[in-house]
């Protein structure tokens, strides 16, 4: 075997004073890192296969394990990081495009962390959400521009179709195929119990989940996998996916190994074939074309369902959003460059797109300037990591936020970013039946419900602190935000003042 140019990324540290050789780690590691050696009567590790998913650490009954970064260091360079060198070695070995999963981990500024939230003192008293009513209900869709009267003088009460959410949080699009059936079931049941929505992603809807239809957003993406009349009719809303924050400008690629019987049926493609979504929708090359698809979908569903258009946050996102608002869409979802993915080329994920905070502020401002903000609702996506991020997003102008990564964390994900291997030890991003089993939907759905309820409590607390008792009064209320450590340009784009101003 030729020389391997780089060492294992992680080191498995086993405290042999504690290890009782129960072999649970060995049985639970799909990467086959742990092995029992009868001659040594000892557990051994193959460090180079470890992806740091923390499954073994979490289940070890005697806390004998920890996974640490391998401290072996290449000669330091501020220009060529060890990571960059290893990636080049990898490509020199394979000749392939580097693949990654989950959100962009690079050290770009996180604007959420440079924005601070206001609170009331003296003149405008804060509100205690435990004692006074606090409204987090949100309606997504077109809002009437004014009051219209019927010929007989009565008020026209017709409204465009809308989504009603108990809290300004929805689960992001994650396809069946990229995540397991048990993960989907957890999301569907949680959305139903919470009174919000989950999103099928582009993989179609498994027939077992049609029962959760009224809390389902069905997606139509460039591959059109699993799209047919019943699918559209079942969902509460239809989302046209034009782009994804993790990989703007390119389509998806679900490897054939993940297309087993059920996924193949749901996606309506042969078993074992790669599911490749084209980069563009081949029938959309202009806003007019987009309008045609929006109205085709509306026509097919008798104008009863709102249509969402999801785009990645890119340089001219504000102009694009303006076009979308004029194309007849009811809701625009903007996905920032830190959004998650089940697989994306590393270079694209790490270098393409812009932060959601800036994109969101720019879009909201543009739509307001053009007087069409009421024509669409905005969903912000792409790394809303906590309830505080959600509050900041809403104050920047979002109607609601999509959460993907936090939902996966609730299901056990440890962000090892190896989804593309299909060997997820937590039973989330895998189709291997023995691994899928590891996610018990009875447990998973409850954890999702807990997470979102906890966030919602926090949102109420933060709003109460500001003296605001409804989400409606927080939306676009940028006076509630202050920047810290930001340049004047950044503040201008975000439309907020600096702390102290």
């Amino acid at each position: 075997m030729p020389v391997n140019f780089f060492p294992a990324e992680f080191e498995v540290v086993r405290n042999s004073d504690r290890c009782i050789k129960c072999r649970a780690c060995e049985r639970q590691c799909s990467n086959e890192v742990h092995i029992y050696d009868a001659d040594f009567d000892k557990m051994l590790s193959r460090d180079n296969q470890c992806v740091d998913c923390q499954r073994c650490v979490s289940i070890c009954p005697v806390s004998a394990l920890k996974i640490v970064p391998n401290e072996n260091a290449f000669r330091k360079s501020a220009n060529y990081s060890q990571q960059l060198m290893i990636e080049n070695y990898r490509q020199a070995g394979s000749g392939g495009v580097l693949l990654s999963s989950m959100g962009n981990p690079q050290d770009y500024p996180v604007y959420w962390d440079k924005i601070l939230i206001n609170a009331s003192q003296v003149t405008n008293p804060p509100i205690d959400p435990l004692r006074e009513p606090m409204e987090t209900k949100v309606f997504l869709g077109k809002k009437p521009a004014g009051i219209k009267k019927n010929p007989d003088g009565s008020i026209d009460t017709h409204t465009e179709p809308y989504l009603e959410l108990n809290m300004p949080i929805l689960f992001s699009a994650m396809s069946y195929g990229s995540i397991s059936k048990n993960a989907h079931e957890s999301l569907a049941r949680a959305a139903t119990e919470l009174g919000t929505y989950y999103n099928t992603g582009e993989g179609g809807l498994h027939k077992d989940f049609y029962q959760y239809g009224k809390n389902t957003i069905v997606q139509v993406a460039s591959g059109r996998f699993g799209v047919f009349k019943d699918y559209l009719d079942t969902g509460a809303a239809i989302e046209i996916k034009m782009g994804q924050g993790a990989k703007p400008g390119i389509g998806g690629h679900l490897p054939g190994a993940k297309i087993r019987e059920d996924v193949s049926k749901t996606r309506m493609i042969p078993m074992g074939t790669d599911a490749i979504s084209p980069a563009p929708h081949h029938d959309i090359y202009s806003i007019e074309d987009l309008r045609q698809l929006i109205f085709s979908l509306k026509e097919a569903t008798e104008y009863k369902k709102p249509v969402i258009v999801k785009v990645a946050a890119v340089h001219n996102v504000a102009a694009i959003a303006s076009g979308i608002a004029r194309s007849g869409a009811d809701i625009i979802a903007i996905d920032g460059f830190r959004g998650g993915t089940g697989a994306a080329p590393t270079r694209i994920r790490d270098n393409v797109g812009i932060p959601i905070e800036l994109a969101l502020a720019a879009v909201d401002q543009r739509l307001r300037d053009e007087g069409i903000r009421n024509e669409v609702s905005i969903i912000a996506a792409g790394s809303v990591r906590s309830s505080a991020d959600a509050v900041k997003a809403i104050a920047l102008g979002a109607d609601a936020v999509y959460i993907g990564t936090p939902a996966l964390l609730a299901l056990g994900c440890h962000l090892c970013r190896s989804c593309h291997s299909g060997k997820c030890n937590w039973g989330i991003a895998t189709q291997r039946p023995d691994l899928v089993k590891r996610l018990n939907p009875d447990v998973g759905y409850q954890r999702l419900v807990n997470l979102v309820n906890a966030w919602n409590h926090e949102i109420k607390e933060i709003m109460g602190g500001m003296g605001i008792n409804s989400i409606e009064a927080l939306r676009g209320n940028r006076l509630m935000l202050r920047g810290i450590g930001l340049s004047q340009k950044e503040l201008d784009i975000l439309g907020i003042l600096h702390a102290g101003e």
Partner: protein
Amino acid sequence: MKRVYVNEDRCLGCHLCETYCAFANSGETDMVKAFKTGKDAVPRIRIEEGDGINFAVQCRHCADPLCVKGCIAGALSVNNGVIEINHDKCVGCYTCVLSCPYGCIVIDYKNGGRTVTKCELCTRNNAGEPACAANCINRAIVFEERGED
């Protein structure tokens, strides 16, 4: 009566129930100490696995138990629905092992097979509730009332 049930769709075959059972019946309060000093008991629960299906097997605490009927030494008895074993009376004839239709009586290999042992739903140790169910990482093993008796 509350019993231990196993959902084979959820069982991962990690064998941790066996580990926790062995610890719960060891009399030790620290798992590392129990295993390192050889005080870990023979697990009274056993994972059967193969062909992608795994499940844990332990005493069903039958309403009309064949093991108790067959015991020649009077070592097995029913106490509040729980089938208990008196290790002092057991003579190691294995009649119960042969008569149990579920294969749930375990030969205590730790004492050279002189006696048998079995699940007593953790009623006679300090675990509180059955340790297998309490510690199952995928909630495949549950301890619940299903009104079967």
